[in-house]
């Protein structure tokens, strides 16, 4: 029954997307716009598959940069947010800086990293880490601060140390926030790596995109965009899966409710 409702709910968006694709395809087929400006969806799909062998190594490089940067940002976010949460002075000192830093567009400072760190993997990884750092840190900070005062008092009244407070109460209750931060950052990580590669490099989806763009191979540009989107969605799916496994108490909520006899 639930499945049927799901399908019915999806009919509208799916038909809408199908309609757009059909119009797009006909516009391309009728040669209203030149192919190098708007290639047909079918042409994009075909070029995606024919170029897959070439694309593969670029995908792997971008994925590697994104993952390494992502992991680094998680480690830093955990470290910084716990320190900020436990020492109020540090929180007040750093918080405005973190917020302000987010107003700087990454694309404008990416060239700086190329100047400082060259055209290897390092500047890309740094950019990914910077992009991912903010959403994780902010959501972790909020999660850590949102713990019920009565609960903290209760565990304190049982003589818990500060480390135990974090281990038993604060970190677990920050988990939902932490994961929503991870989901945002995970999708950013692929884009972040691509922006880094855009500035210059030898391999990666950003580099590949620059190349095919210069030769007006618009179908290949679109194919790369599809891959970037798929990779970002993949990150999101994997993180959601880990989230469900890591927080079974949320997942099991609807299982059973026991009444007093």
């Amino acid at each position: 029954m639930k499945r049927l409702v799901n399908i019915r709910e999806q009919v509208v968006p799916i038909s809408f997307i199908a309609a757009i694709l059909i119009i797009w395809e006909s516009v391309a087929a009728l040669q209203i716009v030149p192919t190098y400006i708007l290639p047909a969806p079918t042409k994009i799909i075909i070029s995606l598959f024919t170029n897959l062998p070439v694309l593969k190594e670029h995908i792997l490089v971008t994925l590697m940069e994104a993952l390494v940067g992502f992991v680094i940002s998680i480690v830093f976010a955990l470290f910084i947010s716990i320190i900020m949460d436990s020492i109020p002075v540090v929180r007040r000192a750093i918080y405005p800086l973190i917020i302000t830093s987010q107003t700087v567009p990454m694309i404008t400072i990416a060239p700086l990293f190329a100047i400082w760190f060259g055209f290897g993997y390092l500047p890309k990884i740094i950019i990914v880490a910077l992009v991912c750092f903010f959403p994780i840190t902010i959501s972790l900070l909020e999660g850590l601060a949102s713990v019920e005062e009565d609960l903290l008092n209760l565990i304190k009244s049982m003589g818990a140390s500060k480390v135990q407070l974090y281990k038993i109460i604060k970190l677990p209750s920050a988990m939902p926030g932490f994961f929503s931060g991870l989901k945002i950052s995970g999708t950013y990580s692929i884009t972040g790596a691509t922006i880094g590669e855009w500035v210059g490099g030898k391999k990666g989806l950003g580099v590949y995109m620059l190349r095919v763009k210069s030769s007006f191979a618009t179908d290949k540009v679109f194919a790369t965009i599809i891959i970037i989107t798929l990779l970002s969605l993949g990150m999101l799916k994997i993180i959601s899966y880990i989230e469900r496994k890591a927080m079974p108490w949320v997942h099991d909520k609807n299982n059973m409710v026991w009444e007093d006899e």
Partner: protein
Amino acid sequence: MKKVEAINIKKSFGQLHTLEDISLSLEENRFVSLLGPSGCGKSTLFNIISGLTLPDRGEILIDGEVYNGKTGRVSYMHQKDLLLPWKNILSNVMIPLILKGESKNQAEKKALEYFHLFGLDGFEKNYPNQLSGGMRQRASLLRAYLFSKDIMLLDEPFGGLDAITKRKMQHWLLEVFNNLNSSILFITHDIDEAIFLSDEIYILSKRPAVVKKVFQVNIGRPRDDNTFTNVEFIRIKKEILNLL
């Protein structure tokens, strides 16, 4: 023997004079209730007794020793169950034992001994949100009990429950109290509940709170539904109603 004694406790928060002058004592294995209008500072008094808050004046004695500002001696249970949603019931009630440095196995064994008494048999592995309000409060009480068996502070533990569950929990608490060997301080603003459960009732005034009167409830135990129509019960209830 006096388990807990509060002597001339006074506490203000800035301009808010919460407790003016409170003295009370809890004898061993007695059930003592604090009854008063809401917002009169009963919970502040519990925070002071449990050592979370320092009084402006006065002393807290536990087993005859000064305990001002020292946590970790008495157990404290709130109106909210305050169970951790990410831990199952067994792991939740084990927390105080783990905090005391016991091994996981040892703590598990100790905690499991009480699951039957607390009516939680078979729910060891369930998460709190899978249990009813009454069961969660029983788990919360078990957690408090495992922390400190001899002195327990219960802050309106049944205040958040519906009337029927509340009545069941009161009967259950009376029954289980006989097996606990605890001295209990109990906050409530339900007059019937106070008389039904207690050996002694302190009536507190509104803020700034002082002790208005102390009632001895001389109704024998075990008590049951007939207690509510007992002559002594009605006499005390009338007097309390007149006072408030």
